[in-house]
């Protein structure tokens, strides 16, 4: 039971992997487009945790700077994606992504 009370960086990496897989599960399972979006943010957050772990491993703060950039890009992507969602909702009155199939023949 050594892994219960000696917390090495492997524990944080395992948590990052599990959070990422929960995000993938949400993207694949849910049909509500906003929930899919939130699961994408969860995946980005899991990757941020992995970056911070390796920055602590090597004593290099480049990982922190990279996480800063990832967060900024995620903010920009969330803004534009939600704007697209609003436009989609205005035209089709639905947020379920399997009802937006007009490009399919």
């Amino acid at each position: 039971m050594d892994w219960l009370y000696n917390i090495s960086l492997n524990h944080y990496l395992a948590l990052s992997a599990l959070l990422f897989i929960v995000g993938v599960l949400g993207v694949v399972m849910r049909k509500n487009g906003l929930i899919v979006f939130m699961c994408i943010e969860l995946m980005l957050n899991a990757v941020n945790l992995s970056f911070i772990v390796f920055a602590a491993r090597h004593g290099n703060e480049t990982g922190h700077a990279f996480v800063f950039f990832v967060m900024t890009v995620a903010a920009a992507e969330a803004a534009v994606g939600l704007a697209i969602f609003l436009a989609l909702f205005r035209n089709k009155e639905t947020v379920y992504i399997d009802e937006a199939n007009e490009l399919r023949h």
Partner: protein
Amino acid sequence: MEAIVFWGFSLMALLSAIMMVFHKNPIHSALSLILTLFCTACLFVLLNAGFIAVMQILIYAGAIMVLFVFVIMMLNLQREGLGIRRHRIKKAVGMIACILVGIRFASVLFSQNIDKANLPADFGSIENVGTIIFTNFFFPFELIAILLLSAVVGAVMVAKTKV
């Protein structure tokens, strides 16, 4: 002591992430994601990343999730009804597959022991991270500024009503 804090926050993060995926009400999902982001910020503090922890609460939980909550409120999304229960077996098999992949993935990450290096006392402080951003990554910093400008202009152009 660190073990208690780690297990508490990581289990809470994992549980609220799973609850975010399975809630039927989108507002409950958004609130669960905010709780996940707070727990991850606390884990960042455990990893000597103080600046990034505060940035996570400010940007992610404070701006992006507020945007999500406002959009959910504006679209006036109702609670997802049960409706026709389709694809139940596919969903169940997918969930079991994800759990097995998750267990295998997490156990592989334990194969080689990684330890924290000897970190100085001011590791992850805003001075150090700011020095790295403004010396090594100065060009990406300027590009981020242009990216944010284009995102704001694009979001307004896409989402405005036709006048």
